[in-house]
């Protein structure tokens, strides 16, 4: 039997094996830690403001001339989760079509941002809204009334898209 032992206990010096100085060192570290600034965000009072790159709830852009959407249906086609339903209608204006019905099922949406990427009119963008709570399945299907958001609230995202898309 010629076994060389190299256990942790043998590698340690006498003072380390006593543990007490090391424990005191550990205690001093945790004590200092107690007075450091805390990371916790007091959520309902202190909210997080996401950056422009954040992909939250998809919304429809509402600019000065009204909604931008021309109801081409590309977003609906590209949506991998089949969350978007668009029904087009005719208008008298230059933009000839508009969505009669535009619904996003938030229970299906996976926040991939494909709809935004494919949109030729920059009419559907991802917002910063991350507080998505619904009391039943019906209210999770958002219609135009809930989707249209004034353009000035979406400036960060539009800027981000212009720069990186």
């Amino acid at each position, binding site marked *: 039997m010629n076994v060389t032992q190299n256990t942790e206990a043998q590698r340690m010096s006498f003072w380390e094996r006593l543990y*007490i100085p090391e*424990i005191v060192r*550990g*205690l001093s*570290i*945790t*004590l200092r*830690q*107690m*007075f*450091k*600034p*805390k*990371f*916790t965000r*007091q959520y309902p009072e202190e909210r997080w403001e996401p950056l422009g790159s954040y992909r939250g709830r998809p919304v429809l852009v509402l600019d000065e001339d009204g909604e931008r959407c021309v109801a081409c249906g590309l977003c609906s086609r590209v949506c991998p989760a089949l969350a978007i339903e668009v029904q087009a209608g005719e208008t008298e204006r230059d933009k000839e079509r508009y969505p009669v019905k535009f619904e996003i099922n938030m229970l299906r949406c996976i926040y991939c941002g494909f709809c935004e990427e494919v949109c030729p009119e920059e009419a559907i963008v991802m917002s910063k809204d991350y507080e998505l709570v619904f009391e039943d399945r019906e209210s999770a299907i958002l219609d135009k009334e809930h989707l249209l958001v004034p353009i000035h609230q979406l400036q960060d995202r539009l800027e981000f898209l212009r720069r990186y898309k």
Partner: protein
Amino acid sequence: MPELAAQVLIALIKAFIVVNAVLLAAASLVYVERRVAAWIQDRIGPNRVGPFGLLQPFADVIKLYFKEDLVPAVADRAYHRLAPLISITVALSLYAVIPIADAVVIGGERVPISVAPHINVGLLYILAMTSLGVYGIVLAGWSSNNKYSLLGGLRSSAQMISYELTLGLSILGVVMVAGTLDLADIIARQKHVWNVVYQPLGFLLFLVASFAETNRAPFDLPEAEPELVGGYHTEYSGMKFGLFFLAEYSNMVVASLMMVTLFFGGWHVPFVPDLPQWLGLREGSLGLALFQAAVTLTKTAFFLFLFIWVRWTVPRFRYDQLMRLGWRTLLPLALVNILLTGVVLLVVNAR
């Protein structure tokens, strides 16, 4: 026998105050523990219930009361019910002999502060009662009829028996120096020099052993969450679990009080033992008693903080490490400590 009736009445009043104070302290300690743990981990901790979250313990206790009290179908119902009662009874009865202040003179009569004052075996009583506390945990583990509970109970009994030896032997040094087992006398003798000066090794051993005795980290193997689910209280819910919880924290308070009493001079102010006299507090007055209680409780609070502080610093021992430390390091050291104390006392007394 009006004399006896009066004594019983006084003891009952004192017991009522002590039990309520202890339960309140134990519940508040849970809040303190959570808060300190949070600070050490760069978090804020409970701060929603009441100002600074101070009402959190009450919310916790109310929640525990309204929880379903579940007893497993395979459990031994009688012992399952008995176990938490043993734990909490033992934990609370320990306070009977601990003096937190000197006696008060009311109507020409000296009224000691503790419930059962001047028991000449006060220290032995405490050691005996803490050993009884094991029964609560072992019974809980066994009667739950659950492997994790049983393992937790087994570990705890092995651990407590191992560390009780060290605990008792480390106290012996103090007893040899003081020459008495009466806690109030031991405090009285520490007026000028605290026992920790005479017994630094004894204090260290007592500190480590009482961490193990109260099942606190780094010796909290009986309830090691990653391996044993909840340990001996896996199958307990509602206020039965709450009783174990309160007993654990109450034991912490006792251990801290014992450290203060035995090693850190009880109610004596450090460096200026005559401070209360300078402040004009008369011997036996209520003001003096309150002052002494405040001193004792401040020192106790420091040791309670130490308990919590260590829990969030030192990782848990492995079972074999625990046993090796107990039997091969602490026990011989305790014996050496007694030997040294005896030799020094002999030399000093011979002169």
